[in-house]
């Protein structure tokens, strides 16, 4: 520092963000309440101005990011027991990162990592994960998926007319939710790859759960085990590229793996929308059918504001805000209209962070909020790019609105 600077902070962590530290983060919270709302410059109406589903639903400030920071302060100082109520507050959070990005606009802080760390403390203290989570944790350990489905049926969705290669540069990592609950997304994905003449292979039987589910409910060891198994299997396969159609899997490989393992990944990871965007540019995907559909796009949290590692002072998720919109705008007869809360301001679908399993009523309430917002645009369909989002939004929408994964629309238009 120059001699003109008389008195710098003594702790150098104020001069440059040192990386995540739980105590430092909770101490740094200034209780400004920016975490309650979408970015203040982007508020377009009173009705759709909040960012935090948990706070909006449960109202006491304890459910906000600020409140959870306070819980962290009290736990770390021994002034609060790690109780069932602490667990309830922490797990009634979709870990959507809305607060996280608003906080980062103001301070060098990482609220989502704070929540994850506090959930790990809940696990250590025996109040987490919640009973509903324990069932899928056991299933991951036994079946390598959280849905208690047999591992050998992981590829049952594969259409007969699609034959993956034995060996290829591209691996399609289908993920548990597409494989067992949203096969139409997996089927659309492989058909698009086939149409674009992309050789791809599947990892099965070596494809396990990505570990995201375990990590988000605080069971870090299992998450580490799962992601390390998958990395090793992909490295062994020799593939250069992994494609996911699940935003959660994408986030796990692209962001979280770097936080929980030192294993080197000899491959790059793409979300299917990134690959399709390139294939369109190369002319390998051509749209031939007009769909005649007015749609609005829902940014999945894990394929938006949580999709890239954070560097203080830099935006995150930027490419994933643009790519799906660019694709939709190229599909003949598709008119894209935007909701008020989009991109980093997107309202969560409500399914994440273990909420769908433990608090289904809250998950559905959150999704209904999104459906209400989508309806104000006049769109006939709500499109997303994550099987988890599709599931929860579909459960909430009933017959009020069509819900699509982007791969389904792309396939329809090819």
């Amino acid at each position, binding site marked *: 520092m120059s001699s003109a600077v008389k008195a710098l902070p003594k702790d150098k962590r104020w001069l440059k963000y040192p990386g995540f530290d739980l105590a*430092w983060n909770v*101490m740094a919270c200034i209780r400004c309440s920016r975490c309650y709302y979408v970015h203040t410059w982007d508020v377009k109406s009173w009705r759709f101005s909040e960012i935090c589903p948990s706070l909006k639903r449960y109202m006491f400030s304890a459910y906000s990011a600020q409140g959870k920071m306070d819980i962290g302060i009290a736990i770390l100082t021994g002034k609060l027991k790690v109780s069932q109520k602490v667990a309830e507050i922490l797990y009634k959070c979709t870990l959507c990162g809305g607060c996280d990005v608003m906080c980062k606009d103001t301070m060098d802080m990482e609220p989502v990592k704070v929540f994850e760390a506090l959930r790990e403390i809940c696990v250590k203290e025996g109040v987490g994960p919640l009973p509903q989570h324990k069932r899928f944790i056991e299933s991951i350990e036994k079946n390598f998926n959280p849905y208690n489905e047999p591992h050998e049926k992981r590829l049952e969705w594969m259409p007969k007319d699609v034959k993956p290669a034995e060996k290829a540069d591209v691996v399609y990592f289908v993920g548990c939710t597409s494989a067992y609950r949203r096969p139409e997304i997996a089927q659309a994905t492989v058909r698009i790859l086939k149409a674009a003449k992309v050789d791809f292979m599947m990892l099965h039987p070596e494809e396990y759960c990505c570990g995201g589910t375990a990590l988000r409910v605080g069971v870090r060891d299992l998450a580490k085990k799962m992601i390390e198994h998958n990395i090793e299997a992909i490295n062994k396969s020799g593939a250069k590229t992994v494609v996911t159609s699940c935003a959660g899997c994408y986030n796990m490989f692209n962001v979280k793996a770097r936080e929980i393992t030192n294993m080197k990944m000899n491959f790059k990871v793409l979300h299917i929308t990134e690959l399709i965007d390139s294939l369109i540019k190369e002319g390998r995907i051509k749209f031939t059918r007009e769909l005649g559909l007015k749609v609005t796009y829902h940014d999945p949290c894990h394929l938006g504001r949580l999709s890239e590692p954070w560097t203080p002072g*830099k935006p995150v998720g930027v490419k994933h805000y643009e790519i799906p919109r660019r694709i939709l705008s190229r599909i003949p007869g598709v008119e894209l209209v935007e909701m008020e809360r989009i991109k980093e301001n997107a309202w969560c679908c409500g399914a994440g962070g273990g909420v769908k399993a433990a608090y289904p009523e809250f998950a559905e309430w959150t999704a209904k909020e999104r459906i209400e917002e989508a309806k104000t645009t006049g769109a006939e369909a709500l499109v997303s790019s994550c099987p988890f989002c599709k599931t929860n939004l579909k459960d909430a929408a009933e017959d009020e609105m069509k819900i699509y994964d982007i791969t389904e629309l792309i396939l329809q238009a090819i």
Partner: protein
Amino acid sequence: MSKMELLASEPIEAYPDYDAKKHLEIKEALIRILGPEWVSDEPEITQAYSRDWTAPGILEPRRPEFVVLPGSVEDVRAITKLANRLKFNLLPIGTGLCGLAGTLPNRGCTVTVDLAKRMNRIIRLDSKNMYAVVEPGVTYAQLHAEALKVGLTLSGAPEAGAQAKVLANHLFFALTGKSQRYGHAPHRILGAEIVLPDGELICLGSAATTNEYFWGSGPGPDLIGLIRGLTCSHGGLGIVTKLAVKLYPWPGPRVWPVEGYIPEKRVILPKDKFRWYLIKLPSEEKVIEAIYEIGRSEIGYAVHHFCAYYMNTWWAKSCEEYWRTWEEGYFQKLHPSLAVCLAGLTSPKQLEYEEKILKQIVEELGGEFVKDEKNWIEYTASNWLLDAQGPRMHRPSGTYSLFALDILDPEWADKVTRPNESLGDKVREKYTPPLVDDDHSHWIHSIEFGHYAVGEQDFLVEKSSLESVKASMQSVMEYITTALKEGSPCGVPQMASGRLNEFAGPVMGNYHVWLRKIKEAFDPNYVANPPYPIPIPEKEPKP
């Protein structure tokens, strides 16, 4: 981590004034009024109401015994009447970031009344008569978004940011970006609905007689002073449940014109309607002359004299960027300067006219227009018309504190905040380090065309250093006691909420005497957020 760094509230049972039997009695009664869903005494919930944005160490965090979420004015009345009957304390909060302890429990039997969650509607937005009636939970950003749709605007948001609540902030102090033209927030208050400390409901302004909220004065002596003013009552004279505020014509876009992604968002306003200028002037005296001349010419939409610390902290997108730019000295080199926004409110021709006048003033005063090399205007200044980046002022060292925040005339405001000369600057200098380097902060904020101004001095405090936090407390106390001793208590009134009024009053016309009489008259049971606005000594619990 040191203990200071993570100072947290003790469990309420640990305080000597905790009474378990009374606690249970209050709990049952509150649940009868609101239902169990909206009453909590769980420590996991109340912990979130134990601090404001002041660093632990300056204030001791303490949990309230209860947090309640009323849904209507009837709920607030019922809770207030109960407080009088069972003798407990009511602490109303909006956003809860205050910074002056007014939203923090300071004694047992405190019930925090979180008004922001269920009483958060915009009751009316009257585009014809240009005002809005809001409940306590409405934010500046929400109201602004709705006002823009009908071609209206607010006077900007306070330094705390547009997430702050319109209602509480108007009562408190609200220095907003466009005060040059639209004045100081408490003067923009129209009608109001208040639950007095005894539970009686009154309406003020035109709402007192017509149930319309268009005018701030009502029949007879105007009681609106109960709820606003420099010292602010912090709920000590009742809970405001509805407030009407003025809106103004907006010639700009109907949606706030934002580009980019967090944290690199920029606001691009149409250049034929809005223009910002950074003007470097030869001296502090010339800055003040410019403020007067701009005011006399009746031009300007926003007029501020900022220091480098403010400019940098609002602009920088990370700690690292802040300190790098600080080391470069980029913003320090701009000092002394003025940031001026002109607006073509009636037409682009108005803007051209105002620009011509501004250029003449700058030329006559020997100033120069500075090139905005770091896009400070797009990243920072333009958003001052809607929002403010005040929360970012914490980023470089964790927190900040202040003295000399006061309403004065511009010349006086300069005198009490001027670098190297003012009392505040000398005190700050004495305590730096362990206070953190900030280039002698000095903010003059012109209000109503320079009829008056706000002078403010903030300074950086290292939140993780007990030594620095203690120094901030000592410096503020030294500032206040010296200013009072010298009989020129600039900066004291706004900071002198609660107990400090007792010290400020004797050198400021003995206002504390009548303030105490008002508190005694309106709050006979001393339940409305004691000791605000001023303590009643005989009713204070023994330490």
